[in-house]
């Protein structure tokens, strides 16, 4: 249920996620401190709460959508090895001894 397929792309890479998390933590704490000081000056706690909520809006805008800066370090997947020749060679080695030419071409090391 948690894995919903959104109609828009939502992924970020790992470095991007770390950057996004650090960014919203800093923004919210910053607005919280500013709000605390302003609230203390004006003796109104509502100012503090409004400041934090404004900080939440700013961070939500900056960190929730997957902006391109969070996609600068894509994960380097390894290149796929062609697995078809491997499985064919193994089967022929274990069961039949027909077509030895094929196995030699595919895996010259294993034959010897």
């Amino acid at each position, binding site marked *: 249920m*948690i*894995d*919903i397929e*959104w109609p828009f792309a*939502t*992924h*970020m890479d790992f470095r991007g*996620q*770390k950057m*996004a*998390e650090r960014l*919203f*933590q800093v923004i*919210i*704490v910053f607005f*919280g401190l500013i*709000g*605390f000081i302003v*609230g*203390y000056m*004006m*003796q*109104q*706690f509502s100012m*503090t*709460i409004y400041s*934090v909520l404004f900080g*939440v809006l700013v*961070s*939500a805008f900056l*960190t*929730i959508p997957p902006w391109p800066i969070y996609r600068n370090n894509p994960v380097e997947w390894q290149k796929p090895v062609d697995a078809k020749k491997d499985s064919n060679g193994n089967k022929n080695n274990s069961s039949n001894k027909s077509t030895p030419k094929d196995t030699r071409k595919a895996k010259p090391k294993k034959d010897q």
Partner: protein
Amino acid sequence: MHSFLSRLNTLFAFTISVLAALTLGVFISTYFEQYHGTVSISANKPIVKHMTDFSANRKKNDLGVLQLNMDMDLNPLFDWNVKQLFLYLTAEYVTPSNSLNQVVLWDKIIERGENAQLNIRDMATKYYFWDDGDHLRSNNVTLTLAWNIISNAGRLLHVRADGSSSFIFPGEYVTSRGKNSGRE
């Protein structure tokens, strides 16, 4: 943090934690505040009646009737941690049967943002001044004001105001058909 919902969840939880820390900060910043204040109270035309209290037993008890004048400015009490004030006026006196009687005559809730400066003249008491017996004649009664501070985050404080006043009830009863009709 990978999926969209997980980012939203982390952001929301972190916001709640920050708000909790700020609320703790508000509590600590007003922990040592005393919330004292001065008021001036006086009573007009105190009289004593002797009637049946129909809401209690059927015996006849003393009923004190008076009017209140009050002046107070409570705006300095509202700092950023005070949500509302609950004021109440108490009449205290001594009788032979009880060493201390306290009767609440009036109360008021002042919320933050409302006018906190009260200048009241000739106001009837909000609650009846029944005595438990018949000892109000010639009794020296002290009127004191106290308030409860209701905070945004913190303890419920009870503070007695400075400035109380006393008056003495007359020594004779007033009947509703007598010359001193006692009607205010």
